[in-house]
């Protein structure tokens, strides 16, 4: 089977590497090309003439309660759409490195102080220049809001305008993931002047500094975006119009790629490459992400109150087989800190990975739960969940445990897990976005701060201490040890059990589109470098 997985378009060394102080224009590509650029799956061919149009197809539209307010949305689908219009201070480069965006450069005189120098010449799409006041106002609005992202910013003490184009963050205690958190769309800079004057309602309209402005939007049908004339990077966006069609059915998106009516789309099905095999001019690339599926055992419920029973289940799971079978070998087992992020822990070293099936049977015997039977509740919108469930079912049979599977529609599942009190499930499965720093997603293991799992997870002071230490440690071997201890502890508690990473499969028309796609993605946005996409063969 000819593997057409990886594609190596004409490449050019892209970014000037540098130390903490970064400078340079993202997306600026030199002419020379090398077979493959580290950290990239596809690199745009800059010889193609600018202008033209690009059509993308995505699975879901923005369906946030707070409409288009970027600070309030919690779904990757919403983040991606808004990333065309709004921009944060910093962004994520290849291999999860933090790159400058609206902040030209930043300095960290001490672990609790971050001084950002704003990029000159940046304005909102209505022409008004972005100021430090916009940045400060945005951060204050975010920290005061009920958005889940407020917590992710960590222990922020103050955000002050310290010079004309300079904003300084003061933290109560060191918090390494701050830069990662600031790189997400939730933290993008809003037109605070207009918001304070109430001349704009951000839940209904958009006014950002990004490469595009919204043309039209028909809910659940399509968006059209136009080039933002006032964009600070004069050479971007390369194309004039961007159309984003909402197409939930994967088979239909595959068809659109076959007949060329769409130029790029993301898929969840691991066999996307196989399904598009033999179709001329279609390339499929696997983008590794920091997202991962995890199993949730309700430790406040009757069945899994006993830690030994939970550990037995944890030991019996074969993460390698889950990664191999459910995603065709393109995902990897992971611990709490997502596999692939800097300093991430090694899932092979956690206690459950080294204990054998006999230990699991012994634990069950000790706990008096030899022929344990329980039901796993998961949902249908992500088909991989059903497949993983069926593999776990066979893994558990090896230690005499019978697991029934209940595939619900997402509304019913969410209600039984998060709303009903007491929570109406023994075990459930879903996935986390892993973001860009190991310390960010591990915050969800502390029910007191994450709240959503307060009703089905015990508070473990020792684990919480490790979580806070992980956030405070500076990147490096010290933090790696803390992460490993954190992974081991969570693994022993066996309440929220990470399984395997959740890659995205990106397919695009190589005859009409020349995109820039990074090999890794922390916020589930395959179109992060949309402003550099070029239309070919016009």
């Amino acid at each position, binding site marked *: 089977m000819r593997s057409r997985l990886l594609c190596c378009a004409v490449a050019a060394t892209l970014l000037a590497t540098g130390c903490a102080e970064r400078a340079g224009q993202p997306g600026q590509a030199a002419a020379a090309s090398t077979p493959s650029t580290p950290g990239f799956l596809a690199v745009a061919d800059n010889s193609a003439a600018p202008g033209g149009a690009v059509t993308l197809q995505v699975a879901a539209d923005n369906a946030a309660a707070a409409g288009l307010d970027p600070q309030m949305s919690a779904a990757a689908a919403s983040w991606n759409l808004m990333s065309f219009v709004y921009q944060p201070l910093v962004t994520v480069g290849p291999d999860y490195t933090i790159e400058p965006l609206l902040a030209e450069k930043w300095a960290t005189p001490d672990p609790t102080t971050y001084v950002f120098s704003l990029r000159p010449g940046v304005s909102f799409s209505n022409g008004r220049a972005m100021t430090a006041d916009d940045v400060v106002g945005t951060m204050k609005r975010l920290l005061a809001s009920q958005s889940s992202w407020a917590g992710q910013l960590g222990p922020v003490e103050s955000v002050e305008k310290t010079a004309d184009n300079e904003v300084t963050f003061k933290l109560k205690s060191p918090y390494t993931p701050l830069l990662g958190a600031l790189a997400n769309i939730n933290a993008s800079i809003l037109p605070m002047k207009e918001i304070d004057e109430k001349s704009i309602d951000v839940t209904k309209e958009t006014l950002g500094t990004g490469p595009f402005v919204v043309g039209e939007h028909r809910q659940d049908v399509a968006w059209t975006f136009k080039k933002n004339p006032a964009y600070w990077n004069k050479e971007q966006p390369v194309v004039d119009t961007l159309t984003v069609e909402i197409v939930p059915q994967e088979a239909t998106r595959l068809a659109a790629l076959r007949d060329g009516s769409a130029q790029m789309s993301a898929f969840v099905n691991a066999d996307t490459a196989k*399904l598009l095999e033999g179709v001329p001019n279609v390339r499929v690339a696997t983008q590794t992400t920091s997202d991962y599926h995890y199993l949730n055992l309700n430790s406040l419920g009757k069945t899994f109150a006993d830690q030994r029973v939970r550990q037995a289940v944890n030991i019996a799971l074969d993460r390698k087989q889950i990664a191999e079978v459910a995603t065709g070998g393109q995902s990897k087992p992971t611990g709490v800190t997502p596999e692939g992020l800097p300093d991430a822990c090694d899932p092979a070293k956690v206690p459950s990975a080294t204990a054998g099936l006999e230990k699991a049977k012994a634990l069950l015997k000790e706990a008096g739960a030899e022929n344990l039977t329980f039901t796993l509740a998961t949902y249908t919108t992500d*088909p991989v969940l059903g497949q993983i469930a*069926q593999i776990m*079912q*066979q893994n558990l049979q090896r230690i005499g445990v019978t697991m029934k599977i*209940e*595939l619900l*529609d997402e509304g*019913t599942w969410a209600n039984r897990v998060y709303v009903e009190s007491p929570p109406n499930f023994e075990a459930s499965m879903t996935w986390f976005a892993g973001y860009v720093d190991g310390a960010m997603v591990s915050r969800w293991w502390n029910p007191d701060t994450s709240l959503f799992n307060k009703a089905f997870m015990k508070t473990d002071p020792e684990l919480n201490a490790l979580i806070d230490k992980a956030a405070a440690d500076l990147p490096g071997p010290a933090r790696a040890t803390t992460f490993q201890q954190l992974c081991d502890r969570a693994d022993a508690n066996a309440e929220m059990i990470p399984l395997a990473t959740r890659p995205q499969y990106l397919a695009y028309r190589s005859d009409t589109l020349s995109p820039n796609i990074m090999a890794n993605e922390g916020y589930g946005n395959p179109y992060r470098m949309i402003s550099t996409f070029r239309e070919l063969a016009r």
Partner: protein
Amino acid sequence: MKRLDGIARSGLVFLLALVVLVVVAQVTGLGGDPEKIVGPRLAPPGPEWWLGTDSLGRSTLPRVLQGTGTSLLLSAVAVLATAVVATALGVLAGYQGGALNEIVMRVVDVLYSFPAIILAILVAALVNPGLDAAVASIVLVTIPLMTRVVRAAALTVSHRDYVTSAIISGARLPRVLGRHILPNVAGTVAVQGTYALSIGILVEGGLSFLGLGVQPPQASLGVLISEGTVYLTYAPWLLLGPGVVLVLAILSINVLGDGLRDQLDPRTSRSLT
């Protein structure tokens, strides 16, 4: 039972053969364990797995057999329930007429004017997906049509002379319904039953296509076919296996239905020359 004509008979034979094969596979585990992962994913048909393997590496043959069993059983149970309810409602409405008839027809109209697939999804969401949701959806979708047909049949029968004479000679309602109306309506119920059976399988298939049908790891023809449609381009055998079985099963059911109905009132063609 007068002889069914050729086509209907072959339909009946195929159905019986299918049921026997499914039962034998269930009992003796012929063709392998439907839930065990036996080989590489999406492997083409070969000696160990005659219909190839699915996206998890399980052999498709035993899953098709299990799926057929589930779908047929599911629809049969649903159709039986529908037959009982629809016959009761239809006969009462058809024979009694008046207020009862009006109420029954209004309820039936309400269900009938609900788009079938949406009714099925509502039920699946209310009763949580699974066997009972699938059965409930099929029952709710097939009851309106069947009640209407049975009512029409009961209406015509109740105008026949032999019914009037039974009433005149003092037969009470249960006797009239039991002895006179029911036997004559039974034929129509049987015919409509076969059609309801095929609608049932299609409705279950539609639910599975939208992900709300039978729960994994159990399979139904609908589940197998919707997965097969996804892998159509790379692993066509995933669709071919269950697809052929489903179409042949429904075809034989429909053809059997035609045969039964022709039995009731044989309508051979006539020449117009």
